[in-house]
C-alpha cells in the first residue's frame, strides 16, 4: 500500500491516518507509514519503510494507526466522549454543590446533617468526575486504539562499561588535579570543618521545645483541691455520691477548663457497696531506698475511691466501669483494672495499676484531694524509672 518514508509532509501520511486527533504526538514515520502492519506478520501487505542501514527506529513499525473494526471503534468513541462530558458536568456539579450547599452558621436546621449532605454531594460529584475520565480512558485504550500487544524490553540497570570506566577516570583525574592526596593538611582540616556542621542540626532539634522536666511526674492536684464533677463543675459530698455502683469523672477545682492540666489530672471516683472496697497498702521501693505509698485504704472516703482516668498503657480515658464486677476497662486496648483492689491490672497491655488519688473530706464536707498522685499518671516515659 504504502512505501512512505520519514517525510511527514507527504500526503500519503495524511491519507493513511485521517483520524489522528489534534494534540496527540506527531506521527512517527513508522506508525503512519504502514497502518496495517501488525506485529510484523503482515503477510507482505506493507513495505518496509526503512532501507538497509536506516534502522534508527525499527520498533515503531509495530503499531498500526487504525482499529481494524472502525464501526465498533466509532461507537465506543461516542461512549468515551459521553463519559468525558459526564465528567465535565460532574465537576461543574462539584462547584455548584460547594457554592450552593451552605454548612455555615446561618444554616437552617441541623448543622451536622447539612455538613453530611454537603460532604456527600461534594464526594459524589468529585468521584464521578474522576471515575468518568478514568473509565473513558480505559474504553479509549481497550476499544478504540488498535489492538496491539507491546512488549517493552527493560534497560539493563548498570551503565555501559565504557561509561563506568570514563566516570572512574574522571574521578581519579579530579582527585589528582585537586592534589587532595598530596596535601594532608587541607584534607584533614576540610574533614574537621564538616564535623561541627553535622552537629549543628542536633543542637537545633534539642531546642524545638521546652524540656518536660518534672511536668510528667506531677499534676495540678494539691492538698485541699476540691473534686468537681466534670461538665457540671459542682463540688460533691459523700452524701451526694451515695449510690453504690456510681461512677463519675472528676476534675480539680480551678482547672476545670484547662485542657492541658486536665490531660493529666482527670480522675474518676467510684462508690462501692460496703465491704467491696479492699484497697491494699502498696509501696514503691525507689532506687534510693525511699518508699512511696501508692495505694491505701486511708485514701478512700466512705467506700469512695478515686483513680486516674488516664490509662497507663497509652493514655486513653479508662472509664468503662462495670459496677457488677468492679472492673475499669480502657476502651482503646481493653486493659482491665480491678477497681476495688487498687486498680490492679487483670487483663490487657497496661503495665501498671491506675494511680490512686488520695481523697478526704474538708471541713464543709466536700470531697478534696489529700495530695497529688503519688506516682506519674498515664503512659510510661523514658526517664520514669
Amino acid at each position, binding site marked *: 500500500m504504502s512505501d512512505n518514508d520519514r517525510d511527514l509532509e507527504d500526503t500519503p501520511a495524511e491519507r493513511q491516518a485521517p483520524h489522528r486527533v489534534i494534540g496527540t504526538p506527531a506521527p512517527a514515520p513508522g506508525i503512519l507509514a504502514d497502518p496495517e502492519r501488525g506485529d510484523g506478520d503482515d503477510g507482505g501487505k506493507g513495505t518496509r519503510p526503512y532501507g538497509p542501514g536506516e534502522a534508527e527506529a525499527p520498533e515503531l513499525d509495530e503499531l498500526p494507526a487504525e482499529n481494524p473494526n472502525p464501526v465498533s471503534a466509532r461507537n465506543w468513541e461516542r461512549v468515551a466522549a459521553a463519559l468525558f462530558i459526564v465528567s465535565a458536568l460532574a465537576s461543574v456539579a462539584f462547584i455548584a454543590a460547594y457554592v450552593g450547599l451552605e454548612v455555615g452558621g446561618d444554616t437552617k436546621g441541623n448543622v451536622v446533617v447539612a455538613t453530611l449532605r454537603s460532604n456527600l454531594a461534594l464526594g459524589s460529584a468529585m468521584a464521578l468526575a474522576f471515575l468518568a475520565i478514568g473509565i473513558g480512558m480505559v474504553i479509549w485504550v481497550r476499544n478504540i486504539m488498535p489492538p496491539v500487544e507491546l512488549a517493552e524490553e527493560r534497560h539493563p540497570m548498570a551503565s555501559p562499561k565504557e561509561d563506568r570506566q570514563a566516570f572512574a577516570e574522571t574521578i581519579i583525574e579530579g582527585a589528582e588535579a585537586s592534589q587532595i592526596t598530596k596535601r594532608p593538611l587541607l584534607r584533614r582540616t576540610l574533614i574537621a570543618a564538616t564535623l561541627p556542621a553535622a552537629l549543628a542540626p542536633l543542637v537545633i532539634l534539642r531546642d524545638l521545645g521546652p524540656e518536660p522536666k518534672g511536668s510528667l511526674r506531677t499534676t495540678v492536684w494539691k492538698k485541699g483541691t476540691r473534686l468537681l464533677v466534670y461538665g457540671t463543675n459542682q463540688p460533691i459530698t459523700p452524701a451526694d455520691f451515695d449510690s453504690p455502683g456510681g461512677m463519675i469523672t472528676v476534675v480539680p477545682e480551678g482547672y476545670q477548663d484547662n485542657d492541658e492540666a486536665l490531660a493529666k489530672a482527670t480522675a474518676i471516683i467510684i462508690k462501692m457497696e460496703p465491704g467491696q472496697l479492699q484497697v491494699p497498702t502498696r509501696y514503691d521501693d525507689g532506687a534510693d531506698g525511699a518508699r512511696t505509698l501508692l495505694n491505701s485504704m486511708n485514701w478512700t472516703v466512705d467506700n469512695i475511691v478515686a483513680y486516674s482516668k488516664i490509662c497507663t498503657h497509652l493514655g486513653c480515658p479508662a472509664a468503662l466501669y462495670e459496677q457488677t464486677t468492679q472492673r475499669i*476497662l480502657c476502651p482503646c486496648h481493653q486493659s482491665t483494672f480491678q477497681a476495688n483492689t487498687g486498680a490492679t491490672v487483670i487483663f490487657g497491655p497496661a503495665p501498671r495499676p491506675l494511680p490512686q488519688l488520695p481523697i478526704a473530706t474538708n471541713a464543709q464536707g466536700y470531697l478534696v484531694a489529700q495530695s497529688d498522685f503519688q506516682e506519674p499518671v498515664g503512659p510510661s516515659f523514658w526517664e520514669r524509672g
Partner: protein
Amino acid sequence: MRWITARRRRPLFGYAAVLLALVAVGMLYAAVTGVGGSTASAGSGSSSAQIAEGKDLFDTSCSSCHGLDAQGSSVAPSLIGAGAAAVDFQVGTGRMPLKEIGAEAAQKPPVFNQQQIYAIAAYVASLGGGPAIPTDQQVSTAGADAGNGQSLFNANCAQCHNYSGAGGALTDGKYAPPLTNATNRQIYEAMLTGPEAMPVFNDETLPSADKRDIIAYITQTRAEANPGGFSLGRIGPTTEGLVAWLGGIGALVLAAMWITAKRREERTGDHG
C-alpha cells in the same frame, strides 16, 4: 461441584465470585444489625389497690427468683430499695422477667402492659423507697442543651455506649446495649438506677437538667440522617474499615480485571 469446575476458568467466573463475596458480606452485615421497636407511656399514681395488684403480679412472675418478699436469692438481687424506676426500666424494656440466666439480660418485647408495670413498680417502691419513675417534665428535652449533653455523654457514657450510642462490648460476654430504641424515660431510668453492669448516675452528682441534656444529645444524634444512605451501624472505624477494605478493594479488583482483561478474539484475530 462439577458444574463449578466446568465453569471455573470462564472469564466471567472471576467477576461472579467477587460479586458473590460482596453480596454475602452485605447480607451478613444486614443480618447482624437488626432493628426492633418499643415504646412506653407515662403517668402513674400509686394506690393500695395498685400495690396489691403489683404484689399479685410479683408473686406469680418475679418471686421465683427475687423471693416472696423481694429479698433476693442466690441468682437474683434483693429488690428492697431498688425503686420504681428500676422496675419500670427492667420490665418496660422486656429484660425482666428474665428468660434465661446469662451474661446479659437481653432486651425483648415487654411481657406486661404499662399499667401492670406501674403496679409492680408501685409494689417494689412500697417495700423501701428507691428512685421513683421520672416525670414527663424530667425527661422532656424541650429547651435542653444537646451540646452540654454531648460533653457529658463523651465523658461518662461513650466509653461503653459508643459516641453515637451504638453500644459496645464489655467483659465476659456482657455488653452495653445500643440506645437506638430507648425512650427518653428509659434512658433517664438507666442513668438513675444503673441496670446490670452500668454505673449509677444519681441526681445529686448528675442533676436532672444534665440528664435531660444527655437525652437531648442521644435523641438528636440518632435522629440525624445518614446522607450516604448507610449508617454502617454508626460504630465508626470498624464497619467503615470493613466496607472500605472489602467493598473498596473488591471494586478495585473488578476494575483491574476489566482494564487488563483479554480482548475479544475477533479483534486480535484481525491482525494476528
